[in-house]
């Protein structure tokens, strides 16, 4: 960190000079190949299948009260879906909380449909209950595609969520000493061949924030932002974050606010 240069770095500098031609050439070819691969995937994103089923879930009467979610207020008024995702997370007066899309969906399921949402919080990812929530996020985020991220940090609780998220972002713990910043705190880094956005900056935050929820070709699964954060913590060797907790919302607030002004491109498609 800073000006302290570990000896291994010096070695690296030496060898990258020594074998510059070869290494640079290989890297270019690999990067080009990956670029072509990603381009080929863009046409025909299976996330569309999840948008379809998410819309059906949104409109279908369900729960003990047998009503749909169509009257849910996602921040722009009851039933307004278009553009709502671009302005989340935000402060909601009725719950007196800052909520992201998924925590807000739980609120609507509870209040409108009479659903016991604790079961949804507890359910593992890639099981029926969580998959329903993820499909809903595919549909709702898709209805903000092309909109600009416009997240407020004006309300004191929004401001605090942002600050808490920022502090969490740098919090190191666990056997590997990882924080979010270990991987997402510098420009131009990657894990294996996967580029790592620098979320502390606008360019990086937008690359991350505006392309989730996304279909992951490696698993054939649709992932929401809550799932993305959950799996980052898993790989950080942290304990598991509680679904839709203030902690996860705070991290989303940090990312979303850093991405303000960028264009939403959801649902995305990823490795």
């Amino acid at each position: 960190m800073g000006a302290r240069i570990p000896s291994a770095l010096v070695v690296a500098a030496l060898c990258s000079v020594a074998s510059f031609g070869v290494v640079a050439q290989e890297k270019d070819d690999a990067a080009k190949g990956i670029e072509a691969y990603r381009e080929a995937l863009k046409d025909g994103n299976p996330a569309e299948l999840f948008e379809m089923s998410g819309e059906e879930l949104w409109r279908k009467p369900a729960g003990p009260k047998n009503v749909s979610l169509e009257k849910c207020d996602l921040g722009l008024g009851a039933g307004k879906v278009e553009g709502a995702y671009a302005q989340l997370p935000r402060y909601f007066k009725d719950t007196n909380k800052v909520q992201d899309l998924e925590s807000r969906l739980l609120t609507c399921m509870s209040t409108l449909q009479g659903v016991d949402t604790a079961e949804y919080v507890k359910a593992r990812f890639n099981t029926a209950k969580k998959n329903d929530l993820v499909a809903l996020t595919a549909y709702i985020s898709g209805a903000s595609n092309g909109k600009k991220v416009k997240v407020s940090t004006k309300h004191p609780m929004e401001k605090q969520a942002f600050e808490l998220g920022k502090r969490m972002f740098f919090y190191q713990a666990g056997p590997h000493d990882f924080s979010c910043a270990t991987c997402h705190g510098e420009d131009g880094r990657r894990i294996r061949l996967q580029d790592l956005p620098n979320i502390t900056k606008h360019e990086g935050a937008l690359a991350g924030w505006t392309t989730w929820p996304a279909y992951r070709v490696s698993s054939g699964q649709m992932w929401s932002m809550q799932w993305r954060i959950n799996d980052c913590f898993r790989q950080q060797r942290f304990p598991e974050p509680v679904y839709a907790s203030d902690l996860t919302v705070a991290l989303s607030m940090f990312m979303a606010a850093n991405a303000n002004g960028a264009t939403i491109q959801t649902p995305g498609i990823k490795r």
Partner: protein
Amino acid sequence: MLRAGSGAGVVAALAAAGFFAPGEALAAWAKDAFEGKSVADAMKAMGATASGASGDVQIVASDIAENGAVVPIQAISKAANTQQIAIMVEKNPNVLAAIFDVGPDVLPDFTTRIKMGETSNVTVLVKADGKFLTATKEIKVTLGGCGG
């Protein structure tokens, strides 16, 4: 036809597929070809005992796949009277991925996505005018993610 001469295979395929609804006149699935463990086996099952590389067969795919679970492939034939196009992955447990019949109403140009267990040659086999033509391309499959 690629699946010609496999009468037993047809019966087996029908059995394997459960049953077809009455009136569903779907062509039988080419079981023998799809169970081929090598390119030679699969080609033999498709009746392609003799074949040759040809510039009329094109494979459009990236040199590297970021993930082997989804590898986009476009298979195109420029050969006159193309009848069928098949996609094979040499190192997959079962090499044959797909067979497309080219009737009078479609172009010999198909795009799909296939699974690859590891870096491998991918071969597109075209039957045109009763002859078999091929093109082969290596696609590298990379490890990814933190799991390595």
